[in-house]
C-alpha cells in the first residue's frame, strides 16, 4: 500500500515539476467537453508553441456565458486564449451580450462551412424535423428556402415554415445526433469536423449540401472543396434559379458571421504573448505533418492569422445593413419564437 502511494505521489511530483517547467496556456471553450476542432488544433499547435495548451470549458445557453465571462474576467490573464464559436457571432448580431469582437486581438481563425445532411429515406419537402443548437439558425433558414422554394414575401416563408417545420429545442449535441440516428429528426446540420468524424457515420445519414465558403476577396460564396455542392447549387438544381430576395440576403448576413467566425482564437488586445501565439499557429498551419492532420480531421479550409481577422470583420461589417438586421429580427421572433434584440448600431446605414 505504501509503495503504491509512493508511486502515485512520485508520478504527480514528476508531472507537476515537468508542468511547471513548461509554459502553460488555457484555451477557453464556450461549450461542453468534446470539441473536436479545438482538441485537434491544440494537439498540433502545442508542438510549435513549446507550451502546454489546456482547455477550460465554460458552457451555457447559446455559448453566451463563456464569451461574457471572457469579456469580464478571463481575458485579463495573458495566458488565456478564447475560442469564439459561430454561435457567438450569431449572438453578436441578435442577442443581448457583453462581449464585443472589436475589443480583442486575434491569433487566427479557420474560415469554415456548415454541412447540412438528411436521412436517406426521408423527403424534407413533406416535412422537416431538425434540432436546435447554438449556431443552427442560419442553416435552418437555408433549409426553409430549400424546402419552400422561391417566395416573394417573408409572410409566405413564415406560412411554409409553420406548416412544414418542427424545430426541436433543448437537446444537447449528443442527443441531437442520437435523435437523428433514430430518425426522430430527418435533417441535421453540423460543422465539417463533426459531420466528417461523427454524423456522416450514423446509419442513414446522407450529405445534402454545404454552406460553401465566403471568398474574402469578392465577398461571395464559393464552392467548399470538401463538400462541393453548395446551398446555392442545390437550390438552383431543385428550383431552376439561384436564391435571391430579402430573406436570402438576411440569411447571407447571418451565415457569413456564423461561418467565418465559426472558430476564432482571440486574446486581449495588449496580450504580450500575441506575437508568439500568432507565429507558432502560422508555423503549425504551414507544417506539412500538422497540415495533413488538419486537412484530414478538420477539412481543407483556409486559415487566417493575425490582423487578417480584423479585416474580415470589416468586410462583414459592410454587409450588415439595417434592412437585413430587421429581417433577421422579424424572422427570429415570428418563426423561431426566439427572444432577440434589434441592434441598429451594427448597421452601416
Amino acid at each position, binding site marked *: *500500500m505504501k509503495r*503504491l*502511494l509512493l*508511486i*502515485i505521489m512520485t*508520478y504527480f511530483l514528476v*508531472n507537476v515539476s515537468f*508542468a511547471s517547467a513548461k509554459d*502553460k496556456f488555457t484555451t477557453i471553450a464556450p461549450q*461542453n*467537453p*468534446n*470539441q*473536436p476542432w479545438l*482538441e485537434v488544433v*491544440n*494537439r498540433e499547435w*502545442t508542438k510549435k508553441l513549446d507550451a*502546454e*495548451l*489546456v*482547455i477550460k470549458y465554460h458552457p*451555457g*445557453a*447559446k455559448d*453566451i456565458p463563456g464569451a461574457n465571462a471572457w469579456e469580464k474576467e478571463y481575458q485579463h490573464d495573458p495566458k488565456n486564449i478564447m475560442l469564439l464559436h459561430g454561435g457567438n457571432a450569431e*449572438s453578436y448580431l441578435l*442577442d*443581448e451580450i457583453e462581449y464585443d469582437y472589436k475589443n480583442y486581438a486575434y491569433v487566427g481563425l479557420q474560415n469554415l462551412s456548415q454541412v447540412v445532411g438528411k436521412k436517406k429515406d426521408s423527403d424534407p419537402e413533406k416535412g422537416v*424535423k431538425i434540432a*436546435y443548437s447554438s449556431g443552427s439558425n442560419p442553416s435552418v433558414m437555408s433549409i426553409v428556402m430549400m424546402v419552400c422554394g422561391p417566395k416573394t414575401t417573408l409572410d409566405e416563408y413564415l406560412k411554409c415554415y409553420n406548416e412544414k417545420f*418542427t*424545430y*426541436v*429545442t*433543448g*437537446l444537447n449535441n*449528443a*442527443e441531437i*445526433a*442520437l*435523435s437523428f*440516428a*433514430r430518425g*426522430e*429528426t430527418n435533417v441535421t446540420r453540423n460543422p465539417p469536423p463533426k459531420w466528417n*468524424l*461523427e454524423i456522416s*457515420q*450514423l*446509419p442513414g445519414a446522407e450529405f445534402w449540401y454545404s454552406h460553401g465558403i465566403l471568398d474574402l476577396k469578392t465577398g461571395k460564396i464559393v464552392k467548399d472543396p470538401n463538400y462541393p455542392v453548395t446551398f446555392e447549387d442545390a437550390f438552383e438544381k431543385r428550383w431552376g434559379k439561384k436564391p435571391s430576395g430579402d430573406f436570402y440576403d438576411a440569411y447571407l448576413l447571418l451565415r457569413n458571421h456564423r461561418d467565418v467566425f465559426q472558430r476564432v482564437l482571440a486574446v486581449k488586445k495588449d496580450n504580450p504573448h500575441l506575437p508568439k501565439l500568432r507565429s507558432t499557429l502560422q508555423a503549425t498551419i504551414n507544417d506539412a505533418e500538422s497540415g495533413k492532420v488538419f486537412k484530414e480531421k478538420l477539412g481543407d479550409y483556409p486559415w487566417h492569422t493575425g490582423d487578417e481577422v480584423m479585416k474580415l470583420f470589416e468586410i462583414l461589417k459592410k454587409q450588415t445593413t439595417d434592412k437585413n438586421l430587421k429581417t433577421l429580427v422579424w424572422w427570429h421572433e415570428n418563426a423561431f419564437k426566439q*427572444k432577440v434584440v434589434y441592434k441598429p448600431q451594427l448597421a452601416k446605414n
Partner: protein
Amino acid sequence: MIELLTQYLPILLIGVGYGFLFGLIPVAGAQVALIALFPYAEHFMGDPYSMVVMTTAVVISATIGDMFSSVVLNIPGGAGSAATMIDGFPMAKRGEAARALSAGLCSAAAQSLIWGFLFIVLLPYYVKIVYLFGMPEMLLFLILAMTVICFVSNKYWIRGIVALVFGICVGLIGEVPEVVGEYRWTFGWDYLKSGIEILPVMAGVLAMPEIIEGVLGKTKAATKIKNTWAQMWQGVKDCWKYRWDSFRGGVVGGIIGALPGLGGGIGDYIAYSLTAINKRKDDKVPFGKGNVRGVIGPEGANLSHKATAYFPTVLFGIPGAPFEILVLALLAYVGLDLGSPRLLANQDFFTVLSFGYMAALLVTVIISIFFIRYAIKLTQIPKKIWFPFLLIVIVWSCTRHTGGWNDYIILGIFCAIGFIMRYLKMNRVAFLIGFVLAAKIEKIGGAYWQLYHKEPFIFLTRPMSLFLLITIICIIIYALRFKGNKIEYY
C-alpha cells in the same frame, strides 16, 4: 495479454490509484478525476492506447472508491453510490463496515465482470436495441423509474409523489434552458441563477439529519469491530447468497447505462427499491436499518452502468453518461475518435479497452480488499469525535461551489428540508430522484411534445413504449394492492 500487461502495468496502477483516491473524496468521483486528467493529456499522445487504459482504470476505481465514502462517511462519493448509504452506513454504525464493503465490492465486481463481458458480446447487436428507444420510450422509462421509487418500496406513496414533485421543482430552479438571461424561481437570489449543486442537496437531505442526530447524541456509536477478515468473508458469502439481488441490480444498471440520455444516478435507487420489495424469510434486519441486501442490490447497478455506458460512446461517439463525455474528449485529444468507422475497425483498440477494463477491475478489487481494513478504522473513532468530524467533512465538501456564505445557507436549507421530510415520513429518495431527473424530464418531455404534438398518443402504437406503459400500470396496481415489506420512510 502478457505483452499488454508489461506495456501498460505502470499506467494501469497509476490510473487505479489516482481514480480510487478521487472516489474516496466525497466531493470528487470519476467525473472530477477525469476532468483533472486534461492537463496531462498531452503526455499520452505518444501512445494513445495508454489513455484508453488510464480512463478505464480511473472510471472503475473511482466508482468502487465511491462506495467506501458512502458506507464509511455516509456521503456519496458519486451519484451512482448514493443508495448504498441507506443500508451501508447503518451497517458501519453497527460495526459491520467490513462486511458491507466486502459485500458491495463483490456485487459491483461480479456485475462489472458480467456486463463487461456482455459489452464485448453484445456490441454488434447494440445498434438494433438502442433504436427501439426513441423519445416516447425515454420519457416512459423516466416515468417507470419515478414509479418504482414512489410506489414499489415506499409505504406512503402519496407522500412519495409529493416529495418527487417537490424535488422536480427544486431541480428546475435556475436558468431557463436555451433562453439567455431568463431565470426560474430564483426569488431574486442571484446564487440560484446557476441552479443548485447536487452535493448540498444530497448531503443536506439524506446525510445531515443522521449526522446531526449523531452529534446530538441520539444515534448509537459504531459497535466495536471484531474479526475484520471474518466479516469480509461473510460479505463474500452474502454476495453469493443474495446473488439474484446483485444480478437484478446489474440488469437495471446495465440497461440504464446502455440507453444514452438517461444518465446515471437512478439505477442504484431503482435497484435498491426492487431489492427491498423482494422479501426473504431470512431478512432479519429491516431495509434502511442496515440490511446487507440494501448494499448488494445498488452496488450491482453501480459498475454495470459504467460498463454499458461504453456502448453508445464507442459505437456512435455519443456519450452514454456524463462521465463518458469526458472519456470521449480525452480520447479525442490523443487522436482516438470514438464512433468513427476507422476506430470501430481497429481491433487493437478493442483489445486494449477489454484489457484495460478487466485488468483495472482486478487491480481495484485487490487494492480495495486491503484497503477495507484501514477504511473501517474510521468508524471506530469515538462518536464524540467521529460525528463532528463527519459534520465538518460534509460541510466542507458542500461549500466548495463558491466557498461563500451562500453555500452554507443552501446547505442549511436542505438540512432543514431533510429533517422536515424525515419527521413527516416523506420519501427523501423520491425527492432526490426528482431533483436529479428534473432537467431530463423537462428536456425529454419537451422534445417529445415538440416532435409528436400532432400525434400525442404515439406511444400506444410502438411496441416498446406500450410494454413500458403496461409495466408502469402493473407496478402501480401491484404497489397499491400488496402492502407487505415496505419501508416506512427513507
